């Protein structure tokens, strides 16, 4: 007979997302039945969101160390060394479910949360990125979700004054019922001023700072891990509201406090707020915790301990201070008009003890909450490998220029200016390249230096659906390539692994495949994973999203004067492709947009070629040989050429050699990996060709810059102006009809 405390039933336990087996573990660890507060605490700590119970077994496959890694996964964000005593701190996180329910606040609080992960560690946030996936453009909810999410991201990031410098946006019917909102934040700190969640010792005061606690988002963490059904709109009141004004003050106040030496450990209150922040610091420091709930700043009357511990009110932090230094925090937070209160202390009991209105309302050991959290080895199977498709298997179109126009005006290729115009990209005055600029990665100067961080987010869900393993490799490789194409050295990545229900074997198979592919690419490219986030159960009524392991990557450009972009093409420049072209068409943009099919295998990623070609390109950039460089990805060579032509206002005459066995459409639109389109003046091109030969790098002359059209073999011409019209026109046409009055 299972044991229950007063007022608790099997149903209540189930509502907390705790399985019967998990409940038995709780009984075992406590030696008694948990009360409501304790049950709530276990439920959030053991939710998928906080415990990674389905994914942990596989995340260990990622390489997480390296010469430049200061802190890998396990803290609030990853930390890498960028030289001169400075570090870049970054992480990406999902806010998928909340954004579907309330797009503005869901996206806004997603930005707020990821910023806190970064400034908690002592970094001043310097850049934001966002990776968005929406349903089909003509789905009834899409435009409403797009406008809300974009306004929310902008509303928050613009107000806190951190530039949103780039991102990616896909539309696919697979996201109709579950959009993805992944936000990434990057910050800068001095290597000797980094703050951790670990480091607490017994007898230290616990200080609460930021906004007051309300009843927001109670059970948000468990909701974020639950599958949707048609009734989920009913769950709406749990969505929390963000206050970017308070966040901005919190950033300044925390950085001011961090400039003192008063902090022992610090942690933002994210999902599961007060519970997870206090448990994580206690667990990492190996201490116990005692909180006086009466001292918690409260926004509403009569809040219970259960509510306070589970609340997800935003813009709050928990600081464990060195004894006697509470006044330092008080003075700073009062100056910034933020709440500040000593709410407890660390102990040597190894337990979490909560006292409210004179009664002990919770007394549980801390270790099981964190370490003994369930960890599942969920069964899975790998999807069947699909056959490769090459140009020869696909009918040749009549007019390549018309195909190009269709692709450049298609949802995934069309300009996203409608989105990024709503983001302040220039605040902090260090943005050297952002969404609007012809650069494969955003470039953000390290303030006061001539160095820049190169930042990109990438993932091609089409490939991951076709082949999780190759798709996982490709996501990492494309990010590495995008950083390389700017002339920067790729350093490390963060990720956001978005998948369906892991209790389904084929979904778990996608997850494992993607993770293993990513891990392999990270090892081959010396590109370790330093932080990340997993978002599972992205499915509605049994319909899962396409597997979407978003990668956010950071590199370093040592000398801004040697940066490379793809907007400086002029008449007479010679165009060349670095890397081998065989014309892989499986799961390509061409197949989807022109043939209306999504079948075929994903393009194979030859990681050795990826590394060799990338290192070659970077070397040529630094040698000053190139005038333009663009990685080849969606839509292949001709789309990359169109990007260059649009950005430069100069046409391109492409040449396809008839005698090769790659047909013209495979040559133009195939999505073979490890390739770059580069441009060089004639003399430099000759030297480039010689170097490539010497280093055994595949290199092919593919065209010449000039004129006002993009053409192939003197035919198939399409005017740059016509390309611009379709490219820039698609998204405004989609969004204009819904002028929403309400913010």
């Amino acid at each position: 007979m299972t044991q229950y405390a007063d007022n608790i039933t099997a149903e209540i336990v189930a509502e907390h997302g705790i399985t019967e087996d998990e409940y038995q573990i709780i009984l075992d660890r406590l030696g008694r039945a948990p009360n409501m507060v304790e049950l709530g605490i276990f439920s959030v700590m053991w939710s998928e969101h906080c415990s990674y119970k389905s994914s942990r077994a596989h995340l260990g496959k990622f390489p997480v160390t390296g010469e430049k890694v200061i802190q890998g996964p396990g803290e609030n964000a990853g930390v890498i060394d960028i030289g001169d005593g400075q570090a870049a701190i970054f992480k990406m996180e999902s806010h998928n479910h909340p954004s579907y329910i309330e797009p503005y606040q869901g996206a806004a609080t997603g930005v707020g949360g990821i910023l806190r992960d970064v400034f908690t560690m002592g970094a001043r946030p310097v850049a934001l990125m966002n990776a968005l996936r929406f349903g089909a453009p003509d789905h009834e909810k899409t435009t409403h979700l797009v406008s809300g999410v974009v306004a929310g991201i902008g509303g928050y990031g613009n107000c806190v004054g951190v530039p949103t410098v780039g991102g990616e946006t896909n539309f696919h019917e697979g996201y109709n019922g579950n959009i993805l909102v992944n936000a990434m934040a990057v910050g800068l700190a001095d290597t000797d001023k980094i703050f951790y969640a670990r480091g607490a010792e017994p007898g230290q005061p616990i200080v609460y700072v930021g906004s007051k606690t309300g009843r927001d988002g109670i059970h948000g963490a468990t909701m974020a891990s639950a599958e949707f059904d048609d009734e989920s709109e009913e769950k709406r009141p749990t969505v929390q509201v963000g206050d970017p004004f308070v966040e901005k003050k919190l950033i300044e106040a925390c950085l001011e406090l961090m400039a003192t030496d008063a902090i022992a450990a610090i942690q933002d209150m994210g999902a599961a707020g007060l519970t997870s922040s206090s448990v994580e610091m206690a667990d990492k420091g190996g201490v116990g915790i005692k909180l006086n709930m009466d001292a918690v700043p409260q926004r509403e009357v009569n809040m219970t301990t259960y509510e306070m511990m589970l609340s997800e009110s935003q813009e709050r932090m928990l600081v464990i201070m060195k004894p006697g230094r509470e006044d330092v925090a008080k003075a700073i937070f009062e100056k910034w008009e933020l709440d500040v209160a000593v709410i407890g202390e660390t102990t040597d009991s190894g337990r979490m003890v909560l006292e409210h209105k004179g009664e002990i309302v919770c007394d549980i050991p801390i270790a099981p909450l964190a370490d003994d959290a369930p960890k599942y080895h969920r069964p899975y199977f790998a999807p069947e490998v699909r056959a490769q498709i090459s140009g020869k298997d696909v009918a040749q179109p009549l007019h390549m220029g018309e195909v190009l126009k269709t692709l450049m005006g298609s949802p995934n290729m069309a300009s996203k200016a409608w989105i990024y115009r709503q983001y302040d990209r220039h605040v902090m005055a260090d943005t050297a390249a952002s969404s609007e600029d012809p650069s494969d990665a955003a470039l953000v100067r390290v303030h006061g230096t001539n160095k820049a961080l190169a930042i990109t987010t990438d993932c091609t869900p089409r490939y991951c659906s076709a082949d999780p393993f190759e798709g996982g490799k490709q996501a990492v490789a494309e990010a590495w390539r995008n950083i390389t194409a700017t002339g920067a050295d790729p350093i490390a990545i963060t990720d956001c692994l978005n998948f369906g229900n892991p209790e389904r074997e084929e979904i778990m198979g996608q997850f494992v495949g993607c993770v293993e592919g990513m891990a392999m690419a990270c090892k081959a490219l010396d590109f370790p994973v330093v932080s990340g986030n997993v978002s599972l159960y992205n499915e509605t009524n049994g319909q899962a999203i396409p597997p979407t392991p978003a990668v956010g990557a950071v590199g370093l450009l040592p000398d801004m004067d040697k940066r490379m972009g793809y907007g400086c093409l002029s008449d007479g420049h010679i165009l060349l492709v670095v890397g081998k072209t065989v014309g892989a068409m499986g799961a390509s943009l061409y197949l989807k947009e022109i043939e209306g099919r999504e079948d075929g295998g994903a393009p194979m990623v030859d990681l050795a070629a990826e590394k060799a070609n990338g290192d070659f390109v970077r070397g040529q950039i630094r040698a000053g040989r190139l005038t333009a460089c663009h990685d080849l990805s969606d839509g292949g060579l001709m789309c990359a050429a169109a990007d260059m032509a649009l950005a430069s206002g100069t046409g391109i005459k492409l040449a396809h050699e008839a005698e090769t066995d790659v047909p013209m459409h495979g040559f133009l639109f195939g999505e073979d990996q490890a390739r770059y389109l580069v441009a060089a003046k004639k003399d430099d091109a000759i030297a480039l060709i010689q170097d490539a030969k010497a280093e055994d790098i595949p290199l092919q002359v593919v065209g010449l810059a000039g004129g006002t059209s993009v053409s192939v073999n003197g035919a198939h011409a399409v005017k740059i102006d016509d390309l611009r019209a379709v490219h820039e026109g698609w998204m405004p046409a989609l969004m204009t009809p819904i002028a929403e009055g309400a913010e």
Partner: protein
Amino acid sequence: MKSAVIVFPGSNCDRDAHDAIARVTGENPAMVWHQETELPDGTEFVMIPGGFSYGDYLRCGAMASRSSIMPAVIAHAATGAPVLGVCNGFQILTESGLLPGSLMRNAGLTFVCERTPLSVTNGNTRFTSRYQAETDLIIPIAHHDGNYFADADTLDRMDGEGQVVFRYGQNPNGSARDIAGIVNEQGNVLGMMPHPERAIDAKHGGTDGLALFESLLGSA
């Protein structure tokens, strides 16, 4: 030139303003917290930076313009000394009555960030003497409420007196008469939505904002 940058809770271009001034004048400006009641002794130039003071809640600039430092800024302006408000700073200047009119929600209702073509319509102010009149500039904007409004008489009077200093090439926000920046009647208080402090370096948004700070330095 001794300068001061006023910092409100929610200001977020204060560092950018500081760096632009330091670069052009060679002297670090004082960063003055909104709760102060006096400017540092000898302050010549005051800049109110952009951002979202008080979150832009209620009305942009409304709460900041009632801060305790503002009487000192108003008194400073009354002596004829130069005061520049950029973006949220412009909103604070109109809210505090130092400049006429008001900045309303953009006509397109969305936040707009872009590098905007501007023309200098009065090159004879102390803020613009280093620009040629009618020169075209590219300076970034980034705002939600930059739609300048004033009644027709005020607009006519400002046009007549040369108080309109910058106009947009392509009106991004619905501003009356394409107004991007104005000075007061005395010509010592300038408010503008575009961000000159984000256009002082060829690697970051160009250098078209430099001449504004150089003009100020030249006129001091």
